[in-house]
C-alpha cells in the first residue's frame, strides 16, 4: 500500500530534482526520489510536497505479539539518544559473534592506546553482545533489528557474578521507504536509526567502530517540531484504545532568561479536540469536493489535521495568556505512550504503539542522511 504519498507526487519536471550524472550509487537513488534540497530547503512548497502528508493511524499490539518480551523490555522505558546511520556495507546478520569480538577489541585498544594489548585471555572487564531482535520488521524490505549490549563486571568478580549493563544500542529500520531500500546495491544493509543509551565515551567508540567497519556515516538526529507535532497527534489518536494519561507539550521561548512553558491537557479533552478537528476537516473537504472521501478516513492521518490540532491548542493558550507560542520552539511532547524531545531523545514507555513511533523516526533518519 502506498503510504508515502510524497514520493509518488514528486513531479518529474520539478526544477529541484536533478538527475546526477555519473555512476550509479545509492546517493543518487534517494536524492532523485526526494529532491536535492532535502532537509536544507526551506521553500515551503517543495518541503510540503516532500514531507509525508499522511500516515497510517497507529495500531497497537503489532509489536508485542511478534517480539520476545524479554528483548522488548530492554527497549521500552528507557531514554534513547537518536542518530542516523547511512547504509552499512557488508553487514551480515550471521556474523554477529565476530562483530562482538571486533568491537570489544576496538574498545579495549582505544582505552589502552599506546600499550600492547593481548586479546586472548585478557581480563577484560567488558563484554560485548550483538543480538538480533526478531519480529520488529514490518515489511519484507526491513532488515532485522540488531541490538548491541555492553556489559561490565568488576575485575574481582567471579564468572558467575551478574554483569551490569553499561551501554546498549540498537539499529533498526521500521517500514523504511521501499523504493530507497530496494534501490540500494546488494551489499548494503539499511538500518538507518541508531538508538543509544549509556556513557558518552562508549557511544562515540561504538559509533567510530561502526563507521570504520561498515563504511558508513553516523550523525546526530534531532526531531524537528513538525515531527513532534506528528507524534503528539498520533499518540492522542490512540486515546480511545489506550489511555494516554495526559498530553504534555513543552515550548521554549527565546527570551533572556529562557522561559519554558509546559502545557498539559487532560487526555479526554485532548482526544475530543483532536477528533473534532478531524471531523471538521472532513466536513470541509466534503463541502469543497462534493465527494465523500470514503473509507480509510479513520485509518489515515493528514498533516492538515495535525497542524490544526496543534494550532487549536496554541489558540486556546493565546486566548488566555496572549502569548504567542509560535515565537518559541516546541521542545518536548510527552504522553503515557512515550516522550520525544527536540534534542533527539526518545523514550518509548509502552510497547503498544511502538511501531508507529519507530516508523516516523526511521523516516526522519532516512531524510536526515546526507546521502
Amino acid at each position: 500500500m502506498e503510504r508515502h504519498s510524497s514520493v509518488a507526487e514528486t513531479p518529474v519536471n520539478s526544477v529541484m530534482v536533478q538527475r546526477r550524472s555519473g555512476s550509479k550509487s545509492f546517493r543518487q537513488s534517494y536524492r532523485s526520489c526526494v529532491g536535492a534540497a532535502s532537509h536544507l530547503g526551506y521553500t515551503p512548497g517543495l518541503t510540503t510536497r516532500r514531507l509525508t502528508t499522511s500516515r497510517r493511524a497507529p495500531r497497537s499490539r503489532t509489536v508485542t505479539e511478534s517480539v520476545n518480551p524479554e528483548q522488548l523490555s530492554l527497549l521500552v522505558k528507557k531514554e534513547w539518544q537518536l542518530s542516523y546511520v547511512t547504509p552499512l556495507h557488508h553487514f551480515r546478520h550471521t556474523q554477529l559473534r565476530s562483530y562482538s569480538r571486533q568491537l570489544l577489541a576496538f574498545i579495549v585498544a582505544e582505552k589502552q592506546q599506546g600499550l600492547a594489548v593481548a586479546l586472548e585471555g585478557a581480563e577484560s572487564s567488558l563484554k560485548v553482545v550483538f543480538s538480533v531482535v526478531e519480529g520488529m520488521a514490518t515489511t519484507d524490505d526491513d532488515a532485522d533489528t540488531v541490538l548491541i549490549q555492553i556489559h561490565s563486571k568488576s575485575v574481582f568478580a567471579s564468572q558467575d557474578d551478574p554483569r551490569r549493563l553499561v551501554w546498549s544500542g540498537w539499529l533498526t529500520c521500521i517500514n523504511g521507504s521501499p523504493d530507497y531500500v530496494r534501490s540500494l546495491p546488494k551489499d548494503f544493509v539499511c538500518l538507518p536509526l541508531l538508538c543509544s543509551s549509556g556513557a558518552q565515551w562508549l557511544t562515540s567508540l561504538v559509533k567510530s567502530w561502526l563507521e570504520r567497519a561498515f563504511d558508513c556515516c553516523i550523525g546526530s538526529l534531532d526531531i524537528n517540531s513538525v515531527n513532534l507535532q506528528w507524534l503528539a497527534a498520533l499518540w492522542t489518536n490512540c486515546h480511545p484504545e489506550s489511555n494516554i494519561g495526559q498530553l504534555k507539550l513543552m515550548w521554549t521561548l527565546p527570551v533572556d532568561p529562557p522561559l519554558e512553558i509546559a502545557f498539559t491537557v487532560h487526555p479526554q479533552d485532548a482526544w475530543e479536540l483532536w477528533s473534532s478537528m478531524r471531523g471538521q476537516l472532513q466536513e470541509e473537504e466534503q463541502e469543497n469536493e462534493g465527494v465523500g472521501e470514503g473509507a480509510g478516513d479513520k485509518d489515515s492521518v493528514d498533516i492538515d489535521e495535525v497542524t490544526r490540532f496543534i494550532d487549536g491548542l496554541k489558540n486556546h493558550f493565546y486566548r488566555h495568556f496572549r502569548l504567542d507560542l509560535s515565537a518559541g520552539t516546541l521542545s518536548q511532547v510527552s504522553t503515557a505512550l512515550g516522550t520525544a524531545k527536540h534534542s533527539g531523545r526518545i523514550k518509548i514507555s509502552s510497547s503498544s504503539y511502538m511501531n508507529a513511533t519507530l516508523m516516523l523516526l526511521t523516516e526522519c533518519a532516512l531524510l536526515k542522511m546526507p546521502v
Partner: protein
Amino acid sequence: MDDSTKRLLQQLVRRIPTQMLKTTLEKWGRLTTEQQKSLDFTQPKWVLTENLLAFCEENGWTTKHITELEMIYVTDSPNQGMWYAFQLLDPEDDAPSVELTQFKEQFKIHLTELIRHVSIKIKKHTDEAVWIRIAWGDSFSRPNHLKPTYVVHHLQTPYVFMSSVTRKQKPLLSQALVLATRYTAIKDAHLSGRKLTAIRDVVMKQYQQVFPTKYPSPLLEQNQTASNPLIKREQAESSENRHQMACEAFGYGMVPQLQTAVYKLETKFRGITNKTMTERGEPIRCVVKFTSTNLLESFRNCASSGIASTPVTPLLSSITQKGRNFFVITDNGRGPS
C-alpha cells in the same frame, strides 16, 4: 554529648558551604580564639568536620548550641529549599499592637499546648522579621532536629512564610500562629518559590514598581542593544509603550526571582475556527506551568519584545498584582482565592 548532637553537627557542617563556614562560626561565637585560629578552611570538608567534632567534645556543646548555629546559617542564606507564603486574616482589635515578646510567649505557649514535644527557637532578625525554628517530636520520641521547620513572620504584617512543614504539622502550626498573632484565620497565599527574599518582595510589593502615568517618560531599557537607528526611530513609540506596559505588569530593574507559575485552567475551548468544540460547551482541563530562572524578568522581556501582546493579560499580571503564583481559572471567574 551524645550521638544525636554529633550527627546534627555533622549534617550541618556538610550543608554549609566552606566559604560561609568561617563567617558563620565567627557569628556564632562559641569557639575560643585558639580553636578558631586552628581551623584551616583550605582543607577538605571532612577534616574540618573532624576538628569541629573534637571541639564539640572539648567545649561540651549541646543540641541547643548546634541549633543556634543552624539558625544563624539559615537566616543568612534563606534562599534554599521551598518557601510557601500564607496570609493571616481578620485581625482582632489588638492585633496591630502585638509586639515581639508577647508574640514569642504566646506562640510557645500555644504550640506546646497543642503538641507537647516540640523544641522551639525564636529569634528576631535585623529586618523586622521573626524567625522561628521548630523541631517536632511526638508522644513516643524526642524532637527530631534533623528535619526542622522554619517559619518567618513579619510583625505588623499579615504575612507568614513557611518551609519544610508536613501535612500533619501544618494545622498545629497554623493554629499556634493565629492565636499568637491575634488574628482569626490563616489562608494559603498561593505563592511559593525557592527564594524567600523573592516571595517576600512579591507579596509585600517591595520591588521597583511602575505605575501608569498620564505623561509617559521613556523608561530606560536595561540592556540597550545596538540597532539600526532608522528602525529604532520608527519603532520608538510602540516599543516604548510595550516596555512601559511590561514594566507596569512585572516591575522595573531587578525583579524578585520567582521560578515558576502554575495555572490550572478549566475553561471552554476558545479556538477560532472550530465550531464543534465551541458548541460542545464543556470546559477543557489543562495545566500550564511557566518555568524560568527569573520568571518575572522573562515575562517582562516577552512583553517588551512583543511575544506577549500588550496590554499584558490580567492572568499574567496577577502574579505581581496579587502576589501569587498559583491560580485556578474557571469560566466563572477566578477559583479559590
